[in-house]
């Protein structure tokens, strides 16, 4: 017993004990499933019959127009949400941290409420707001301007608007919080120095806040890219299911879900999944390199 104790308590072994839970989870719930996914992507799998088909799933993928559309939709959604959910929350965070801002705490809490609302609930609410019924919120807004009701979810851009608004609604508060936290770690002296140099509010933002927020921005950008590319539940809830008009709401994960769970073509779905995996990793790594987050400071992460 004491031998075991001494072994476990030794400074050499202790770190491995600490990281053991992760290593176990990683092996059981990640490496094994990932390996199966890679294997399945070379197979045609139907209940009760499995067949090796070499690269044919990947060949099909390359010529698959609907997959191309799913990629296009996901990438477009990701770009738009990144373009909206980084600058605006940052600006709002800057404004709300201002000395002139009263009741900032109240507003911060207010903006955080959507973050706490689940996708299931939020998606349902948005679906009913963007419903084609003339009395539904978005159509009644059109009604105020004397315009007729439209099919919000059957038009490419208006349905995209619904998805983007849902995303902005849910995440503005969260991203503001990230930026506020980032701003707090900027030493006050820098602002004071800038003030002495005669900088106004805007210059202080561009010369102090913006550059020093870079780590935060990179973090938020990384998770936004990831979340944008992996979006699925939002579309599923807002459109009511995974079949949207002209596939306007189809995303890469939605396509994976369609083949893996709806059409039961696990082999093909695995190929789709691995394509997403490679895509997400390439974009993330490229982004990290371009923004300089990895490279010289790599060990620090």
């Amino acid at each position, binding site marked *: 017993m004491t031998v075991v104790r001494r072994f476990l308590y030794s400074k050499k072994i202790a770190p491995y004990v600490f*990281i053991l839970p992760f290593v176990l989870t990683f092996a*059981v719930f990640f490496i094994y499933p990932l390996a*199966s996914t890679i294997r399945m992507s070379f197979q045609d799998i139907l209940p009760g019959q499995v067949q090796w088909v070499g690269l044919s799933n990947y060949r099909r993928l390359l010529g698959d127009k609907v997959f191309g559309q799913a990629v296009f939709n996901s990438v477009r959604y990701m770009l738009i949400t990144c373009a909206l959910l980084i600058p605006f929350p940052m600006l709002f965070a800057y*404004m709300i941290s*201002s000395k002139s801002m009263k009741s900032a705490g109240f507003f911060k809490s207010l903006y955080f409420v959507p973050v706490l609302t689940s996708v299931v*609930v939020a998606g349902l*609410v948005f679906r009913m707001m963007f419903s084609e019924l003339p009395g539904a919120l978005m159509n009644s807004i059109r009604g105020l301007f004397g315009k007729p009701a439209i099919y919000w979810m059957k038009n490419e851009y208006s349905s995209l608007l619904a998805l983007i608004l849902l995303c902005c609604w849910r995440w503005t508060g969260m991203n503001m919080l990230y930026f506020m936290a980032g701003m707090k770690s900027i030493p006050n002296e820098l602002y004071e120095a800038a003030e002495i140099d005669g900088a106004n509010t805007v210059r202080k933002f561009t010369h102090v806040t913006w550059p020093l927020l870079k780590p935060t921005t990179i973090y938020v950008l990384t998770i936004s890219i990831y979340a944008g590319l992996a979006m699925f539940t939002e579309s599923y809830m807002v459109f009511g299911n995974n079949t949207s008009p002209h596939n306007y709401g189809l995303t890469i994960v939605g396509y994976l879900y369609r083949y893996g769970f709806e059409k039961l073509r696990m082999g093909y779905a695995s190929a789709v*999944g691995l394509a997403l995996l490679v895509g997400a990793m390439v974009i993330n790594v490229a982004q990290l390199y371009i923004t300089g987050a990895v490279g010289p*400071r790599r060990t620090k992460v």
Partner: protein
Amino acid sequence: MTRTVTQGRQTKSGLQYSAAARVALILFFSALGAIIMIPLVAMVLGTFKGGAELWRNGLNLNPEFSKWSLKSWRYLFTGVTIEGELLPHSYFTWFKNSLVIVLLQTTLTLFISSFVAYGFEMYEFKGKNVLFMCVLLVLMIPFEILMLPMYVQANSMRLLDNVWGIMLPFLASVSAIFFFRQYLSGLPKDLLDAGRVDGCNEYAVFFRIMLPIMGPAMSSMSVLVGMGAWNSLLWPMLVITSMNKYTLPIGLNTLFTPYGNNYDLMITGSCFAVLPILLLYVFAQRFIIDGMTAGSVKG
């Protein structure tokens, strides 16, 4: 990391003290707040109008007080439907299941992830960088890709239809590990040596010295983990098969079926489901920003 310190740092970014700016800011944020509240207000109004009305006229901001009734809410709490018949529902069973899972999962995730993070941050050991790259790898991979093999795996471990099956794959949460490691890297390490000098072994240093001072990071992470557990749908839906073990999102999702005609319960239930996580947030919010400041965002 005390309250006064943060208070002292509160006022720093730039806008000038001018009455005009003050009013403009308040107006701006009130307007933004109003826009953000629209869907929630519409939902709350909807609970008073009843489920059938939602599909007839859509969800909107028109209060229509003449249509108000508390019957949807009555149904939620008593099981007596709008029409007055007693039709028991399982909402509060689901609610209880979700609460249990959130409490367990949050506690265990915080504990296990901080434990792992401590190992990564405080020690140098063989394979550390490779293993930490694995953490980042998991962070980058959508879980949906691995869902089917994970399901098979969960089955072979006899975890199907079992609350542990919902939780186990996510207890060593990579985002929490990442976050805690960032937080720990900002803490002075001499504390540990002081602890060792006092005769603590490696684990006691973690339990007696580190754990207590990780409070702020724990609170902000508790909201994020708790939120994830409370709202999680896809995986629990695969794992759980018995109705009496459903979590709230699964249960609410079954009410969406066009065959159920249970929209009164759906709308009030959805509204009520926001409550616990809101309470958790109100309780923990004062720590959240502090925790985040020291945590994930240092790059």
